[in-house]
C-alpha cells in the first residue's frame, strides 16, 4: 500500500490547519456563508437536510486495518456511530458538527487520510477495480497509476477551478469493475498485439441529467505518457468546457458537441506541445511508486484446501457464501472475499462503528492488513487464504456482515436520497429496502443470478440508475414521490444506458414492478443467461408489457 512521504504528510497537515482557521473565522462571523461554502467544499464538507456531511477520500478504494479502525472511531466519537460507503469508494459521515470537523480531519490525518478531492470542481478522488492486485484477470496492478494520478492532480493549480467536477477511473482487467466507460476519463490498461502494455483512453462518459457512454479517443497510450496525456485532455476541457451553464459544464457535453474525433484532435494537438516537457514522471519515480504496490509475500499454498471443502460440505450457508461472495485470487490457495453491506432490508452502504472495527480486525489477521471499498457500496478483503475462509466467514457473520448476495438482486446501489440529501426529489433507501425484503430468499436470489438494480433519488444519478440492469429514478410529481424505471443499462465492459420503460410508478407500485420484470426473465431466460442477456435478446417489449399490463 502507498505510504505518505514527508510531502504528503506536510500537505495534509497544512491543509487541516488552514481549514481550522477558516472554520474559526466562519464561527466568529468574519466569513459569510457565501465566502465559506467554497472553502468547506474543498474540504469535503457539505450541508444536507439534517446536518453537515463530511466525505472522506479513500484513494482508489484501498485502506489498511488501521485506517478502517480510525474510520470506526470517528463514527463513534464525532458522529452517530455509523458511516456510509459511496459509489466513489469513499465514506461519508452524515452528522458531523462544523465545530468538530477540524479535529476529525486531524484524527484522519494521523492515519494518512483526508477529505481532499471529495468535492468541488476539481479532479476528484481516483477510483479503481476493487480486486486490483488480487485478481488473476488483470495484466498488472492499476493502483500505481491511480497513485500517480492522485499525486499529479492533488492541488494541481491549473485544474483547481475546472468548469465542473472531474472523475477518473482506472482498470487493468478485462471485466470492468470500475465503470470506466461512464467516467469523465476512463483508463483501461491492456496489452496490445505487439505485447506492450498501455492505456485505452475513454473520455466523455458520465451519468447525471445527460448520460453518455464514453468515447475512446486513443486506442493505445504508452504508459509513460499517462500524465502528459491526461494534462492535455484537462487543458482542452479547462479552456473549451462551458462555464455559463452548470448543467452543460461536464466534459461529456464538450466531447459530444465537438464530436469525439474532433475532440481527440484537439487533445493530440495540445499533447504534441507538452508531451516532452517533463510532465511525465521519470523512470525512478515510477519505480518508487510501483514499489509501494509490490505484491505482498503470499505463502506458497496448494490451490485447493481440504479444510475448506470439508466445511463447505458440512455447512450449507457457508458453501453458499463462498459461491456468492468470494472470487478467484491470483495466488494459489488464496481467495478474494466480498463483504456485502446490503443485509436484507438494510441501508445500502451503511456500516456501524463496531462493524468497521470488526472488519479492521479481520483484515489485519486474515487479509494481509488490506481492505477495499467498491463502487457498488460493498467492501472487499483482497487476500484471504482459503484455509481461513471459514474463520473469516464466522467472524463476519458474528458482525452481521455475511449476507451472501454479491451481484444479486438485493445487492442494490442506492444513493442517500431524500432521507438525507438536499438535492433529492424522492427517497431511494426505502425502495431498496423493500425490494431487498421482497427477494429476501437467498436460494431464489442465487437461482436468479446477476441482476443489478440501481436507484437514484434525483436526476444527478449518484445511484447510477442509468447503468442498472434495472434502474430506478425517483422524481417529484407535485409533491409526491414517483419512480421511473429504466431497463437494460450496464456500467461494465458491455456499458449501455438503460431505456425508459414507460410512465412513472408510485412508491407502492415500484416493488411489484421489479418483481414483474424479474418474472419475465425467470420465464424466458435460456440456459445461464443473466437478466441483462435475456433483456438484450428479447428487447424491451415483453418487459414493458408485463410492467404495464392492465393492473
Amino acid at each position, binding site marked *: 500500500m502507498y505510504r505518505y512521504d514527508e510531502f504528503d504528510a506536510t500537505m495534509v497537515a497544512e491543509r487541516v490547519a488552514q481549514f481550522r482557521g477558516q472554520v474559526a473565522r466562519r464561527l466568529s462571523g468574519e466569513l459569510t*456563508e457565501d465566502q465559506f461554502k467554497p472553502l468547506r467544499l474543498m474540504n469535503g464538507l457539505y450541508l444536507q437536510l*439534517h*446536518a*453537515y456531511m463530511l466525505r472522506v477520500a479513500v484513494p482508489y478504494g484501498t485502506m489498511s486495518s488501521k485506517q478502517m479502525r480510525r474510520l470506526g472511531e470517528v463514527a463513534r466519537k464525532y458522529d452517530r456511530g455509523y458511516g456510509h460507503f459511496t459509489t466513489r469508494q469513499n465514506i461519508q459521515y452524515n*452528522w458531523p*458538527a*462544523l465545530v468538530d470537523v477540524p479535529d476529525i480531519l486531524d484524527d484522519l490525518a494521523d492515519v494518512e487520510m483526508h477529505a481532499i478531492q471529495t468535492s468541488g470542481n476539481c479532479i476528484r478522488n481516483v477510483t479503481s477495480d476493487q480486486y486490483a492486485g488480487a485478481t488473476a484477470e488483470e495484466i498488472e496492478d492499476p493502483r500505481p497509476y491511480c497513485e500517480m494520478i492522485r499525486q499529479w492532480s492533488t492541488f494541481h493549480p491549473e485544474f483547481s477551478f475546472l468548469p465542473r467536477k472531474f472523475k477518473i477511473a482506472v482498470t487493468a482487467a478485462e471485466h470492468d469493475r470500475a465503470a470506466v466507460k461512464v467516467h469523465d476519463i476512463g483508463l483501461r490498461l491492456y496489452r496490445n498485439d505487439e505485447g506492450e502494455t498501455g492505456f485505452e483512453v475513454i473520455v466523455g462518459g458520465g451519468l447525471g441529467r445527460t448520460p453518455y457512454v464514453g468515447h475512446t479517443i486513443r486506442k493505445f497510450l504508452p504508459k509513460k505518457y499517462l500524465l502528459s496525456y491526461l494534462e492535455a485532455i484537462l487543458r482542452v476541457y479547462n479552456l473549451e468546457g462551458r462555464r455559463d451553464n452548470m448543467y452543460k459544464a461536464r466534459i461529456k457535453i464538450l466531447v459530444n458537441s465537438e464530436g469525439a474525433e474532433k475532440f481527440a484532435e484537439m487533445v493530440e494537438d495540445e499533447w504534441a506541445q507538452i508531451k516532452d516537457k517533463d510532465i511525465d514522471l521519470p523512470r525512478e519515480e515510477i519505480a518508487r511508486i510501483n514499489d509501494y504496490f509490490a505484491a505482498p509475500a503470499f505463502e506458497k499454498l496448494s490451490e485447493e484446501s481440504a479444510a475448506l471443502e470439508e466445511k463447505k460440505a458440512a455447512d450449507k450457508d457457508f458453501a453458499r457464501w463462498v459461491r456468492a461472495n468470494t472470487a478467484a485470487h491470483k495466488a494459489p490457495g488464496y481467495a478474494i472475499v466480498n463483504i456485502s453491506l446490503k443485509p436484507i432490508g438494510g441501508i445500502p452502504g451503511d456500516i456501524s462503528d463496531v462493524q468497521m472495527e470488526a472488519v479492521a480486525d479481520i483484515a489485519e489477521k486474515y487479509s494481509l492488513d488490506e481492505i477495499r471499498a467498491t463502487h457498488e457500496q460493498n467492501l472487499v478483503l483482497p487476500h484471504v487464504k482459503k484455509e481461513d475462509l471459514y474463520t473469516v466467514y464466522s467472524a463476519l457473520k458474528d458482525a452481521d456482515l455475511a449476507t451472501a448476495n454479491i451481484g444479486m438482486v438485493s445487492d442494490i446501489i442506492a444513493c442517500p436520497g431524500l432521507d438525507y440529501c438536499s438535492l433529492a426529489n424522492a427517497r431511494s433507501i426505502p425502495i431498496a429496502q423493500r425490494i431487498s425484503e421482497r427477494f429476501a430468499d437467498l436460494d431464489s436470489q442465487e437461482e436468479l443470478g446477476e441482476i443489478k438494480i440501481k436507484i437514484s433519488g434525483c436526476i444527478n444519478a449518484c445511484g447510477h440508475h442509468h447503468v442498472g440492469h434495472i434502474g430506478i429514478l425517483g422524481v417529484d410529481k407535485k*409533491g*409526491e414521490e414517483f419512480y421511473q424505471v429504466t431497463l437494460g443499462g450496464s456500467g461494465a465492459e458491455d456499458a449501455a444506458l438503460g431505456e425508459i420503460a414507460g410512465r412513472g410508478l408510485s412508491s407502492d407500485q415500484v416493488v411489484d414492478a421489479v418483481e414483474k420484470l424479474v418474472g419475465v426473465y425467470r420465464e424466458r431466460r435460456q440456459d445461464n443467461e443473466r437478466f441483462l442477456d435475456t433483456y438484450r435478446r428479447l428487447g424491451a417489449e415483453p418487459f414493458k408489457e408485463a410492467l404495464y399490463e392492465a393492473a
Partner: protein
Amino acid sequence: MKAVTANRLEDGVVVYLSNDNDWTSDLTKAARFENDDAKAALAGAEARAGEHAGAYLIEVSDAGAPSGRETLRETIRKDGPTVRLDLGYQAEASS
C-alpha cells in the same frame, strides 16, 4: 402561512425562527407569518448570518406542520431520516 427555517451554523441541525426571535428545534413553536411579513422575517434571519448556514421560508399549516409542495422534504427535516427512526428529532421525541 410561512415559517423561517435554517440549519444551525455550529452543527448544522434544523432550526426554526421562534416567536421570541430565537431559534427553536420545534416547528410547532415556530413563528408563523403571512405574505410580506414572511419576507421581512426571512430578511431579518438572513441578516443574522453568523447563526446559520442559510435560511429560507417553508409553508406550514395552522397546526404548525409542513404543508404544500415540500411537505415530504420538510417533514423529513423536521423528524429525521425515515429509514433511521433512532436519529434526528424523532429519536428525542420517542425516548
